[in-house]
């Protein structure tokens, strides 16, 4: 379905640009949510339903909710620049140039891009499960182990040193503990 793909691509590009251009971090985060859901829609259009749903559950549903949650809690109004404007501009130029030089020739070589007349990739749950638990069992288990280790580490970091264990420290210094409502006052 080329029309669906065109609409989705337009949405994806627009939301990706929005992530960079919005001043308010929450607006950027919401744009990223739109982008991730859009990618899920592309998966669904390719008949990979499982991937689409997992994309929504993991990225849009879990990770981005946490990001938005933290942004709302901290509510940073002013932009903090770790590098000066000129250095940032040069660095982003170099990184962007690298990306374009890698992807650009590829696109020029393949132009005009046409959809391949092949059956869509089988994204069924059974096929994915079989591959995951036979061919890729070690990478899969390693990833699980890593996530578990990260979880334990996060729990350790969040614990207060000798304080009340029921009230974990959220942040030090910068936030004075008050929660401010959103909007552009």
């Amino acid at each position, binding site marked *: 379905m080329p029309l669906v793909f065109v609409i989705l691509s337009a949405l994806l590009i627009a939301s990706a640009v929005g992530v960079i251009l919005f001043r308010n971090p*929450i*607006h950027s985060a*919401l744009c990223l*949510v739109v982008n991730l*859901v859009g990618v899920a829609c592309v998966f669904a259009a390719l008949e990979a*339903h*499982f991937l689409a*749903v*997992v994309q*929504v*559950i993991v990225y*849009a*549903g*879990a990770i981005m*909710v*946490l990001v*938005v*949650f933290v942004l*709302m*809690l901290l509510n940073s109004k002013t932009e903090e620049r770790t590098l000066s404007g000129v250095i940032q501009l040069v660095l982003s130029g170099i990184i962007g140039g690298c990306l374009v030089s890698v992807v650009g020739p590829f696109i020029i070589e393949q132009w005009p891009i046409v959809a391949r007349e092949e059956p869509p990739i089988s994204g*069924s*749950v059974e096929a994915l499960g079989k591959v995951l638990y036979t061919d890729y069992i070690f990478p899969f288990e390693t990833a699980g182990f890593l996530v578990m280790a990260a979880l334990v580490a996060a729990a350790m970091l969040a614990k207060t040193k000798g304080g009340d264990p*029921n009230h974990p420290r959220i942040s030090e210094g910068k936030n004075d503990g008050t*929660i*401010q*409502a*959103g*909007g*552009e*006052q």
Partner: protein
Amino acid sequence: MGAVLGIVIKGFLVQQVTLGLASFCTWVERKGSALIQDRVGANRAGTNLYVGEFLKTDVFLLKPFAFIVRNLLLRPAFAVFRFLGSIGVINTLLNDALKALLKEDFVPAGTNLFLHALGPFMAVFPVFLAFGVIPLAPDVQIFDTVIRFQVAEISTGLLFLLAMGSIAVYGVVIAGWTGNNKFSLLGALRAAAQMISYELAMGVVFATVVLHFGTFDLYRVIEMQGGSIANWGVFFMFPTGFLCFLILFIVGMAETKRGPFDLPESESELVAGYFTEYSGMKFLLFWLGEFAEIALFAIVLATFFFGGWHIPFVEFPAGEWWAALIGHAVFIGKVLFFCVLQITIRWTLPRFRYDQLMNLGWKMLLPLSIVNLIVAAAVKLSL
């Protein structure tokens, strides 16, 4: 083109079912709460409708016409209206909606207009979308085509419900943030924390259900529960199935932010929580979303654990339209039962404290559901 038209028609019908169930929940909420609290409840709107002198005419030729319209059309219609008004239906469905539509749409100063409108939309949209993967009646065969009463026949319907549940958090979060108000922001933070916490236990319960049925397809889940009552989900691998049902029921109450779990909108501390700054139809949309969510959880419970449209020990011939009709009625009956049960619990139990809420989610339901999953897996392997 025919396929697209079919999906549009199905989508429209499912939408009507959703709205019907949500309206029913609204009515039960208003009138049932009155019953529980020993009040009368809504009983006035529409009851003063009398035909009286209406359409009485002196023109001889018009007399029979006026007589027919008055006595055969208006009188019975008004009687039905009066009856519906006396049990509170007119008040909840017609008056409330009209009132909300005519109210001023207040938007707090300095907020983002687009996001402020997006909040209630995102509270309703994922719930309505989730109804799209639910099969509402057994298949019907007309000539050679088999019609399935399910908008999206995707193989991962069960996971889709989970995905929509996690998307639903955004409505609340955006609404609370754009309220430009500390009460609404605190309500949104509470709601997000609560929904994320209880989603974990829900995911594990879903995994246990998948383990039992061996499929993500909701139609096949219901199909496998036909025949004997022992095939129902609650009775599988006793007591794991029953435990699953219990956990999912509690999680459902928490996810809909209802009942003893309504801390996000606790009116004694936070005015109205995340929708404090909403009025009119936008405010009503939050309620609609909430009631649709109640209906959705009731549907999930009926689908996973209570055999969907199956009556125990009764087998209907496949593909008959009357069998589908009976099946749909049975299904909706089960759903309505769970809707009423959830609302009854809401009006019976007092609100939790916040630490109790978090302890229940993280220290009781999550470990219990994980142990349940492991036991179910062990039993499944040994069978």
